């Protein structure tokens, strides 16, 4: 499965890119996160939430192939 991923704020600083597409054989968010943690070890030290298709999901959520986003703490307003 090819999964489009977006990064924001501090997370985009760590990944040094705002979006990328990752080829990946797992089925769950937590598997994807393992792959991303290997690729970007510094991610481990920073809290973030995960969205799939623009809605927050838990790590046990099944991947649908739709857009994933890694969202650091919100700080609007």
């Amino acid at each position: 499965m090819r999964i489009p991923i977006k990064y924001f704020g501090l997370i985009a600083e760590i990944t040094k890119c705002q979006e990328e597409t990752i080829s990946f054989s797992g089925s769950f968010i937590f598997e994807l996160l393992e792959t991303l943690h290997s690729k970007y070890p510094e991610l481990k030290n920073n809290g973030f939430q995960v969205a799939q298709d623009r809605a927050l999901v838990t790590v046990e959520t099944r991947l649908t192939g739709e857009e994933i986003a890694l969202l650091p703490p919100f700080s609007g307003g």
Partner: protein
Amino acid sequence: METRTPKNVFKQGAISSGFIGDSIAKHQAKTSIGAHNIFLGQVRADVIGGKIVSAIEFTAYEAMANQKFDEIREAAFQKFELTCMHIFHSLGTVKAGEICLFVFVSAPRRKVVYKALEHIVEEIKANVPVFGKEIFEDETHQWKKN
């Protein structure tokens, strides 16, 4: 599945006082309104570790944020008897002293507007994926926390 396209809440740069004044003026034709309540978020020149914040640079997960703003708006119309509601948020650089968030609710009677406005602002702060990067005068930065 959400099919309607949510309104775009974002404006590039600061929200000007003239824009706010014009928004107020536009409500004069709505003569069932008795009370307006407006919240404005302004960028503070905070001093952090001896350095002064000169601006905040806002980014957002725009597609999700606009959908969230839309959900917040629809839920508030369900929950409170409001005549109208407007939300604007800045993207990009907003300097200290400038306005980055403008929430405007109007209703026939005043009791409802206080609660509605607070509710909407708190929902925005908690649930909308917007990210503020505090830029110091020496051009270093840190990520804002709400």
